[in-house]
Every structure is written in C-alpha cells, then in structure tokens.
C-alpha cells in the first residue's frame, strides 16, 4: 500500500510532463491549447525564453518528483530505524549554488529581451537622421471597447483630419509599428497573444507598445486588466496586411471616415 502512495507522487511529474508535451504537439483533444504562433519579430525572444525556462523547470520537475517518490519507496512502515542525520553543509551549499547559478544566468540572459520589448523603442532613419519611430495609431481604451485613432493625411494627432475606427486596427507587415496607448477611464491592458505584446494602460499616462508583425492575418486584441463588468467583452481585431494592401486599406478608410458625403456601408 505504501508503495502505491510513492507511485501516486511519481505520477505527478510523469503525467504533468506528458500533458505539457501533448499540448505542445497539439494532439487531440488538446489542439490549439499551447502558445499561439508568434508573428512578432520582437516576440521570438519571449518564446525562446519561455521554452528555455520550460526545459530547465521541466528537468527539475521530473528530477525532484522522482527523488520525492524514491525517498518514500523503501519505506515499509516502522520496521526500520531512520538515519540520524542533522544536515550536510556541502550538500546544502551545492543545492543552493546550482539554482543560484541558473537563476543568475537567466536574469542576465533575459535583460536584452526586456529592453527590446519595453525600453528601446524602434528607431528609423529619416533624411540620414536617426529618430524614434512615431506612433502610427493612438489606441484609446475605454469601458468596454478599443478606439483606434489614425493621424489622418497630415500624420499628426489632435488635428481635424484624425479619424477613428472602433474594434479593428490595421497595420502593415514587416514594419516596426508603434502604438500610443491611453485610457479614458480605468486601467486596461493591451494584449495581443499572437504578438506577445502586453502593456497595462494607466489613465493619465501615455505609453507606447511596439512590434513588427511578420505574417499577414487577423489577430485578436484582448484586455487583460480587470476593467469592470464588461471586461470579458473588450476585444478587437488587429489585422496585419501586406504593405500594398495596407496602403489601399488606409486610403479607403481615410476616404470613408472623413467622408464628405454619404457612405454607410461597413
């Protein structure tokens, strides 16, 4: 009976790892339940780090689980005297230093990825001069929708030719894109799973997110910071288009939204 318990604990890492592996391969019935395909040039590092940590923790998970089961395996219950050991400094130092080393390595290893995604806004060269890529869309989150403001033909925000699209935003493929995100009421969070982009939006604060999508398609934007009763509704579509398609779309939408005469078709 006692060995049954030992096996029960051994099942945890075995079944756990199996389930994760199953999900990674997306076999039935777990199809589509792992990381969605990454389409962001800056997001690759995040996936890489995720997988790296998954490997490291996976090995530790199986290792410790196996040791746990093993420690209990020989037990027969009361017939044997336990070892009288109070500790072993060498061992303890070893199992403090090895994880420490791994963690220090991870800390340093991920610094660049963090900077790339959150600190260093992409740069473009205009007229031989380097400058930060200006935001191409101003995203205003409100309860419970996303409003996307385009600067219009003059390329500047807060002018009369700005126009707004609700619930859908288009961006060109293979170009660094910067969004300026703002909130008009409470906290929201701008999350595009496929782009590995997420940033809380704080009212009274202007922030930027950036990405470079490398695959055309429709991706969903979700809000991931509780913003009230309709939090779950707060979605929008981000459509990545080939550059020429994007140009056409932009032109058409500009014409439609700044329409000077009737056009009601959606």
């Amino acid at each position: 009976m006692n060995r049954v318990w030992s096996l029960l604990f051994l099942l945890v890492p075995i079944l756990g790892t199996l389930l994760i592996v199953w999900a990674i391969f997306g076999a039935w019935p777990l199809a589509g339940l792992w990381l969605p395909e990454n389409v962001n040039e800056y997001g690759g590092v995040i996936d890489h780090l995720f997988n790296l940590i998954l490997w490291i923790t996976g090995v530790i998970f199986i290792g410790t689980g196996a040791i746990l089961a093993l420690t209990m395996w020989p037990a027969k219950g009361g017939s044997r005297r336990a070892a009288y050991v109070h500790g072993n400094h060498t061992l303890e130092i070893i199992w403090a230093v090895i994880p420490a080393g791994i963690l220090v390595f991870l800390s340093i290893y991920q610094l660049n990825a963090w900077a790339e995604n959150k600190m260093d806004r992409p740069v473009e060269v205009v007229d031989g001069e380097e400058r930060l890529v200006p935001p191409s869309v101003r995203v205003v989150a409100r309860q419970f929708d996303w409003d996307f403001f385009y600067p219009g033909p003059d390329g500047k925000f807060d002018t009369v030719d700005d126009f707004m699209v609700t619930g859908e935003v288009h961006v060109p493929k293979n170009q660094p894109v910067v969004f300026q995100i703002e909130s008009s009421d409470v906290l929201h969070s701008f999350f595009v799973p496929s782009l590995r982009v997420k940033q809380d939006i704080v009212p009274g604060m202007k922030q930027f997110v950036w990405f470079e999508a490398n695959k055309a398609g429709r991706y969903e934007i979700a809000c991931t910071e509780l913003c009230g009763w309709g939090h779950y509704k707060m979605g929008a579509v981000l459509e990545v288009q080939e550059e020429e398609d994007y140009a056409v779309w932009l032109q058409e939408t500009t014409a439609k939204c700044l329409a000077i005469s009737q056009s009601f078709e959606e």
Partner: protein
Amino acid sequence: MRYTGSLLLTLIVCVAGCTPPPEFRQNAVEVKKLELQTLGEEEQFAAGQLEDIGSFLTAAFGTPDEPDFPGLVEDDPEVNLVTQEHLVSAAGPVASLEDGEAQGLYREHCVHCHGISGDGSGPTSAFLNPYPRDFRLGKFKYKSTPLNVPPTQEDLRRILKNGIPNTAMPSFRRLPDEEIDALVDYVKYLTIRGRTERDLLSILAEDPDPALDFIASEEQFEAADEAIEAAVESGDEEPYPPLFGPNDVVDEVVFPQVDQWFEAVDSMTEVPQRPVELSPGHPDRDMWIARGKDLFFSTGACVQCHGKLALGDGQVDDYDDWTKDWMKTLGIDPAETERINEFVGLGAMPPRNLIPRNLRLGNYRGGSRPVDLYLRIKNGIEGTPMPAAAVSLTSDDIWSLVEYVRQLPNESLSQPAVQQPVNERAPR
C-alpha cells in the same frame, strides 16, 4: 456519516432542478400609465383584456425560446423583415458553443443589459448611464433617417459593429456578419413586438370593446403563414395580403409597422457634398469655421444646451423620451419620489437628467465621421431634446457647424494633463 448521503441527494436535486423557461414581461409601466391617464383614477384594465393581449402576443410572436413573427415566409429575405433562421439563432438559451451552430446570441451578448423582453432593464441596466435602449418604444437615436422613421438595416448593423462610444454598448465587430444580422433581426422583432403591445394597450384604453379580433390560436397563425407563403409563391405583389378579416390586429397594428420598416430605406436623409472650402488646407476654411462658430451661438442655438464653452452645461435638467413617456405624460414631478418609485417598481428606469454632450471630449455616440455629425445636426436625435435643424440651417451652415464642432476637442484647453511616457527616450 449517515447524513452525508441525504446531503448529497439534496445537493444533486438543487443542481439538477431546472428553472422554468424565461418569458416576455408585460409592459407594466404602460399599463399603469394608461390606467392613470386614459381610464381615469379608479379604473383598471380588466384581467381578461390583458390576458387577451398576452395570448395574442404569444400566438403572434412566440416566446423567448421559440420566437415567431406574423406572416413569416420561410427562407425569403426579400419579403420578410426578419427571417426565421435569424430569429432562431438569436433566441433561446446560449448553446452555440456545444454544436458549433450559433444559438442564443441575444442571451449571450445582449440580455444582461437590454433584458429578455427588450425593455432595457436587464440586471446590469440599472447601473449604466445612459440606460440601455428600451426597444419597445420603437425609437432609435443614431440613424440616417428623419425623426419618426425607423432606422435602416444598415444603421442597426453599424451600431452593432461600432458600438456606441462613451456608453456601455460595445462593438460586436468580431462576430461574423451572419450573427450580426441575426441580432439586428431580433432587435426589429423585439421592437415590433413591443410597439404592438403598446398599441393594443392604447386601443383598449380608449375603447374597452374594440372592433379588433384578437386571434389567440396558434393553428390560425400557422394557417395564415401558409396562406401568405402560397400568395407569395403565386407571385402576389403585396407581401402581406389581408388574411384575418377586415378588423384584424395583425393587419391593423403589426403590418403597418412592418411597412414602415420596409420603407425606411426610401426616406434616408441625403447628405450633400461638403463645401470644398471646408476641406483641410483650404485658404477660406477658417472663415467658414468662423461661420460655424457664429451659428453655434446664434441661429443654431446650440449654445442653449451645449453651453458657451461647449461643455454640455447649458441646460442640464431635461429628460429623454423614455422617461418623459410616463413621467411627463402623467405630470409627475421628479421630486415626487413615491410616485416615481411606484413606476420604478413596475420596471421603469429611475429618471435621470439627460446631459447634453460635452463637445470638448471628442467622442460622439452616433459616430465621429463628419457625415455622422451632419446627420445628428440635420435630423436631431430621436428621443432626446436635440432638435432637427430642419429649415433654419442650410446644408452649408450644417457643414460649417460640423467643422467647428470637430475642431473643439483639438483646442489645447480641451486636453487633460498626461504623464509623459518613460520609454520616449532618445535612441542610443
């Protein structure tokens, strides 16, 4: 230990016991209003009368789980205002997720605000400002048709796709077009059902013994539907031939509404081309905007409600038609809490002042495109004190006003202070 079994049983019974299917609510506010207004202080509708209306509505329009529409011709969107397919996928309990086929869309997306009867009093509604729309009055604010004309199919579709900015109505753009159309049809269905109920009540209030035939039997409805279908197939011009006799409720009350909805698209307001002087960059643009500003203060009289600084602080003590419908009709003072509460208890929303739009915020409910603003000024906003510009303003005037209003939020004094982002540093 021996109680565990019975405890388990009780729990299972609790879990398994099913709630009765939801039903449409009676328009109790309207009943009360008519009793006080038309019938006089002491009188009431006879129970049988209300029951008649109820059974007629059920026979004609079905239940929330099994909706129906009078004169529905199968699979023919040309002659049907709403289609059976759309009604089925919009109504009923949420089940889309289990068999892939969309079902219960209204209850998945709409019911907690607009209520099962489309009366705008779902559980969430009490907390929202503005209140969710009560479809039963048949009034819609943001549309391309003039006052007292139903919106077009495209208008409702637009509202569902874009939502209504600065209200709790979200955008449903991510739903497939088919589902949006289903919901639009269901909104029409609820509207016509609600209007029919109101109309029947007022007919009864004025004449306790009307010469209308209340048909209650479902078989008759089915027979009528078949007759209509046959008529359509035989190439009859009139999609809704009178079938129930000369004094039939459906012919007298329902079909005229259906006709209005069909004809709405013909009375859409024409929006003329914006004068070229108002296009950005034109040298005379400022002059034209100054004209808009002048109109704002003078002929347009916008200043009266929207205030001198356009903050929406001109007048702030008016109500919308949904409140006025019973409050003003019966002459109830907003301070009379007891009488107000009586109506609130019957399902009315607690009266709340309608605050004119703060034009410096730059979000417009009916859409922010110039053409949307044009329509708001031209046609007014149905159900609110915002009047139609009608004759006092020419189209050029309206376009100048639109442009003046559109540049208000861009003024530097309209903008709140914003903390500068931390990641706007110079490139390394």
